[in-house]
């Protein structure tokens, strides 16, 4: 596992989900990983750019990758959307050298190599499986969550996924490693509605409701995710979606953090969720 990574937080981790940013940094430092944020990073080209303009959808991540290339290290993008855009741009530029050339002509720092791009799950699992892994001092015994990857993490155009698209298991492995007992369900990679929560609320609420209902039907105590958009949608719109009972929606980093004994640090972040996530963990005696 790398000890130094170039860090691409993306807009969510600097805005609506800044507590995810905190838990990512805190937990990774426990693994001995230091993060260096890309200087002057810009939008990853998520929804709007990539849907409206193919070239722009690649040029935006290319700009960020060009900046990252200066550092010469693997890039971490915790947000699923950022991650998929960076990876897809990597693939597209390899396959379309002319496009790469034309984009590079406009970039201050052209992107020439192929940087390894890591997502947070790979990193956490590597860290937990390493020989010198930090000890799980506070295993999440009794916690039965469902793992929720969202639709973006495993579905990257042109990219041979490292995991089964429909049934990825990395997050479940992480949860098992930290003492939780994840429940298998069919909705691991279904859509949360993403930005349609802003553009077309009823459509998003429909999708969110289905996910919440199914998680509760599966007798899950909580939903764990690694995507800030998913966490936001499932957490923020529970009132509108009105599932049978409220269900906490955690970030995977928060779970790992708690298990590593960072109780207070994580509690501070979990308090910032819309749906109470503190009580459940307190009842289980881990927070």
């Amino acid at each position, binding site marked *: 596992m790398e000890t130094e990574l170039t860090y691409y937080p993306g807009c969510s981790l600097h805005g609506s989900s800044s507590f995810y940013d905190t838990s990512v940094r805190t937990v990774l430092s426990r693994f001995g990983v230091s993060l260096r944020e890309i200087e002057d990073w810009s939008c990853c080209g998520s929804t709007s750019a990539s849907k409206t303009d193919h070239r722009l959808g690649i040029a935006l991540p290319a700009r960020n990758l060009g900046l990252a290339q200066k550092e010469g290290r693997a890039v971490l993008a915790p947000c699923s959307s950022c991650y998929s855009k960076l990876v897809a741009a990597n693939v597209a530029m390899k396959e379309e050298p002319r496009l790469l050339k034309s984009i590079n002509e406009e970039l201050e720092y052209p992107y020439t190599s192929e940087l390894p791009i890591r997502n947070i799950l790979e990193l956490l699992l590597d860290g937990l499986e390493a020989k010198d892994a930090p000890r799980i001092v506070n295993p999440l015994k009794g916690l039965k969550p469902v793992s929720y990857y969202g639709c973006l993490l495993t579905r990257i155009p042109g990219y041979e996924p490292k995991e*089964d*698209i*429909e*049934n990825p298991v990395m997050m479940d492995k992480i949860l098992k490693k930290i003492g939780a007992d994840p*429940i*298998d*369900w*069919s*909705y691991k990679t279904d859509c949360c509605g993403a930005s349609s929560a802003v553009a077309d609320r009823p459509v998003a609420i429909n999708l969110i409701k289905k996910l919440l209902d*199914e998680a509760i*039907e*599966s*007798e899950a105590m909580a939903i764990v995710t690694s995507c800030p958009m998913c966490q936001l949608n499932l957490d923020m719109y529970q009132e509108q979606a009105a599932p049978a009972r409220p269900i906490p929606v955690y970030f995977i980093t928060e779970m790992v953090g708690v298990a590593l004994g960072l109780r207070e640090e994580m509690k501070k972040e979990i308090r910032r969720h819309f749906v109470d996530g503190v009580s459940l963990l307190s009842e289980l005696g881990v927070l």
Partner: protein
Amino acid sequence: MSADNEEKRDNVRGSVLIVGSGIGGIQAALDLANSGFKVHMAERQAAIGGTMAQLDKTFPTGDCSMCMISPKLVECVRHLNIEIHTLADVLEVSGEAGNFKAKILKYPRFIDLTKCVGCGECPAICPVKDVPDRFNERLSSRTAIYRDYPQAVPGAFVIDKHGPAPCKATCPVGQDVPGYLAMIREGKFAEAVEIIRRTNPLPLVCGHACFHPCEFNCERQYVEEPLAIRDLKRFAMVWAIEHDSGMTPPAPAVERPEKIAIIGSGPAGLAAAHTLATRGYKPTILEAAPVAGGMMALGMPSYRMPREMLELDIDYIGNMGVNIKTGVTVGKDVTLAQLKSEGYKAIIIATGVQQGTKMKVPGEDLPGIYQGLKFLKEVNLGHKPAIGKKVSVIGGGNTALDAARTAWRLGADVTIFYRRTQAEMPASEEELEAAWEEGVRIEYLTAPVEFSAGPDGRVSSMKCIRMKLGEPDKSGRRRPEPIPGSEYTVNTDMAILAIGLKPDPDYADGVKDLKLEKWDAPVVKPDTAETSLPGVFAAGDLVQGPTNIVEAMRAGKDVANVVDAYLSGREYRGVIEKRIDPSTLRREYFINPHWELDYSNVTRAPRVEMSLRPVDKRRGGFDLVELTLSEEEARKEAARCLECGICLDCRECIKACQANAIMHDDQERTIEVNVGAIILAPGCATYNPSVRGELGFGRYPNVVTSLQFERILSASGPFQGEIQRPGDAKHPHKIAWIQCVGSRDEHIKHGWCSSVCCMYATKQSIIAKEHDPNIEATIFYMDMRAHGKDFDRYVERAKNQYGVRYLRSMVSGIKQSPKTKNLKISYSDEAGQAKQEEFDMVVLSIGFEPHGDAERLAKTMSIDLNNDRFAATGDFTPVCTSRAGVFVTGVFQQPKDIPETVMMGSAAAGGAATLLAKARGTEVTPKKYPPERDILGEDPKIGVFICHCGINIASTVDVAEVANMAKTLPNVVHAENVLYACSQDTQEHIKKIIKENSLNRVIVASCTPRTHMPLFQETMKEAGLNPYLFEMANIREQDSWVHIGQRAIATTKAKQLVNMIVAKSRLLAPLPAEEISITNSALILGGGAAGLSAALSLADQGFPVHLVERSDLLGGNMRFLHSTLNGSDVQKFMIELIQKVNEHPKVTVHLETEVKKIGGYVGNYVTQLSDGATVEHGIVLLATGGVEYRPTEYLYGQDSRVMTQLELENAIHNGSPPKQKENFVMIQCVGSREDQHQYCSRVCCSHAVKNAISIKTARPDASVTVLYRDVRTYGFKEHHYLTAREMGVRFIHYDPERKPEVIKKGDKLVVKTFEPQLGAFIELPADRLVLSAAIRPPEGVKEISDALKVPFNEDGFFLEAHVKLRPVDFASEGLFLAGLAHAPKSLDETIAQALAAAGRAGLLLSHDRLMVSGIVSEIDKEKCAVCLNCFRVCPYDAPFINAEGKVEFNQIKCQGCGLCVATCPAKALKLRGFTDAQILAQVDAFAELLP
């Protein structure tokens, strides 16, 4: 022909190799073997039968698949000229067409085929019970010793052994570790001890102190931790002591007089003595020390090697007759020469290594500095050496650890100094951990450079230097290098050096005649362990350097084996087996195609550890540290074994097998066969749907594959035919089938259509509903491809009669409800709406794919594969591969169904027979039957066998009750019920019963005599009885199938049927079988593709052919075709074919000729032709073809722009190519699939696609729209359908209820049709409107039918003998059919069928004589008034007036129909086998049991 070619022809072999044994291979094998060729059949599995044996029922007739194939299997295995090689792979093929040499690798079965009787005792005792059952598609488990199903052929069991398991393979003494683990798990501890003792001379020692290489290689470590193998051995052996079980050695089988001396009683010497004692020798061990055991007694501390355990092992060896003399030093007390003179024929030196290696540093010899081994010896002999307070131990091996822990126990403060790091330390990890726990300190990367003495002259301090690791040395470990200037000093008052051992030079004095290495070990030959003196051997650590107990034991065993061979006068080189390199083990396992190292579903279970004596109780004493496992712990731990080698080598089956058939040491063998041709029939794999994660296969338990569902339906399947969910055994109510899983999917490179899935899904839904009428069946499909004969009617029946719901849709994914485990299918319907529906169970209709071995097979055979990795064949040569003499049949060529596979099997056989025509009959052995027993004057002695037919009969009829009733009937001397009467086992059983009871009548109550009579009659002949002394009662078709759910009624009826047939059989008499001669020529009707191909094939086989064609031209429908879908030139092919036929010396072509009159019978027809010729022939082949329907609809014939596909094809090629921007509209199914013509014409979809592509190729701007009901581009034709779509051809679906309308708008033609996606009607302008018109039978079908007495179906196509298994034969012998006369089909299929018919016909013509049925009419000339009534009713022209003016019957023409008997007013006629007396007896018997 040149001399060279002549010679080649002379080398033509009369035998054929068939690779694969599914129904295609079987058909080819039987055809060839029955026509004079020897057949070798190589099958990868343990039994023949292929996929068909796994199926439940077949479509569209609903016949039981197993019942159909089983007689064929039996016929194969019984056939004298078919040699079956199971568990075989073809490795290499050399030579050329006519003369190939093939190397076949035969994997071991581990069971002697000639001895196994299939009694089933062995699986009952096999401890391995969780092997996923391949035959049941992993829905159930089986044992390691198994056979796939009861009717399997050959019927012998097989042992599934992927061994040796790594633990066994890496055990130096080859312990059957998995075997004793299983016995411990089962609580059979005595058996465990027995297995351990089998190969281990020192089991108690090993149970306590073995280095356990097995555990380092245990597969369980890939789940979590290896098994505690050593601890389990210890448990078993301690149990043995406590229960005094297996503690007394058995007496050896032989006694050997030769005297053998073994010098040294360490593990090598003891193991050698033990091995020799088992061979009957009584060796003498000479031990210098006062106690026996060598290092085990002297070098190892007793807290890990308890002395009483060692003594028990030594006593055991002593009890075997080994004499152990202690206190005898060779060299001092006795010399080698003396031993020889005392009559020792062989001497084994196994004195080990005892001398400590010097460090070569100053002060090394100071008082207070010990050699490690010497120190331990002192302690072990009770000499109590003086112990310092601060003890330094130098070294990192087990001796260092033993010395350190011993010194600690004696009260010292101990530190170990080691020059490398922990990773390089040779001592075992558990030793290290224990030392650590006890408080022994360890300093790494340091080494002493000098010892200094204190004032008392004893050692007082030690100067050390720090080390770092450099490059790896020869041993692969990184070499330590001193860090200059890092010296430091430690105080120590005692130092123990344990850095290495070598042989004690003292021993050399006694053996001074031996040549020695420079390190004092004797020079030995590595492959024999022999020293420079004859008869003197050396082994163990002395030779190989310091190792460990079990390695030394191995050396002892090895040398003992050499000595035994030496003394027995056998070659003793090569006796020592090669060692297995553990690092290659896993890799080699993968070579086995069945091996799966997938432990993802194994539940993690931590290793059960022995409890330890607390540290504070260890000091001051030498008690065992580790405490033996309890019984409960041991069984729990043993249960963790993954059984990765499957068979555990426990050998319990040997005890169970009465037939002595088990051969655990069976080896693979390579054989070579010399054959003239090769037929490839390896079948295909089915798609693994877990690749498509959205369908949840492998994740959701209630999602199954279609093949799994076949097994679920099957009576012999995992649930005995009950439909239940694998997840929870619940009965599903709503079942969904999802079509095209792994077919028609370019994303996964499976672009082809698998051809059979639509039909099998339809069949499965019907059968499921027959099993349970409450089941609601839904089939999600894209196009319903029912393109076979009578298939559309079957689908209509499923819809209308059974209520199966067909949903044209695209499925996007399946979700599982967490609580109910029901499945929610998301799909888009025909209008493109997203929908979801919940089901209890989902069946994935998986398609075919080339099996994993296809590429290897192609390479071996040097044949080409197509882009889809199926065997490449030509459009006009459907059974020929790219290599001459190598033919192909079945799904390896293209996905297809059973009749086509059978057809191709016959065609390939025909191809091979043509090629090898010259050598026919040269390599076969004729079948000989025992002489027929004369039963004249015997009372009837009847045997009755009631068949279960799996559950086909037994689930409805109480078969036991029927058998009991039968026993009470007069003359019945034997009655029983059997699982499958048709299986090979049962045939043998029936023969045995016939013999034991001297039976003279046999009755089987089972299925229909139509398919099974010949099989049982064959059994009668083999038992020496006339075949007509056999009778059948049909209690399946006539009883169990019609009275499902009415057990009482069905049972009563079965009894009646049996009673009737018993009554009849009392009156049976042996009937003579007539033999007739045969005219070896053929008459073929029809000069199209089928007739021409068949004519050429038969002529090439050497038979004269008369080809009769009604028109003035040969070629048939080929004349209207220009290219095939693949672009091959049909005209060129046709012209060449016609030329070959015309020029062939054996073919006579009769053009513009019809048949005037056909007379005669099989083998001897005489036919008058309209051209005046009269021909004699042995067979008739119908190839009368079909015609394109002239439509009456859609303005055909009224508007010149409306044309048929054939007309369009002609127009495109002849003067009217597509014009710029021309609009083409094609309408499919014109005249097909309609009320009056409820059949699919099969070729029209591909014809439309072909023409659409040629339009688009010529004019990309032309527009082509195809209005279709289902696009039926089955097989590889699907690729062209995709191409057409990619080229912009539009396909719009229509329903028969809403057919397109053709409207004339002014002078424009417009087609109005409903567009389902839009949900609205659209209008399409048509410059040319093309109708895909049906294929119709030609005129004159009725006349041919009347002349030849052959049936046709309601559509006017001739009816073959059996739609699945006899696709080119008619029910009457000597008549065959091919091509469109049979059913609509494409050109390549027509050619294949023609070759098949020619092959089948050739089979018949190849015989000089023919046996005919004994069931014929017989006339009582005294009663006959020659009224000629029989002449009028006989359909076969059998009666004739003989020279005396009396009526006589031609017994060959007579088919035994009995019409004449019924019509004879004088009762002068009787039908043999159906006499009045017999029938009346049946009627009386029927009345007897009436309620």
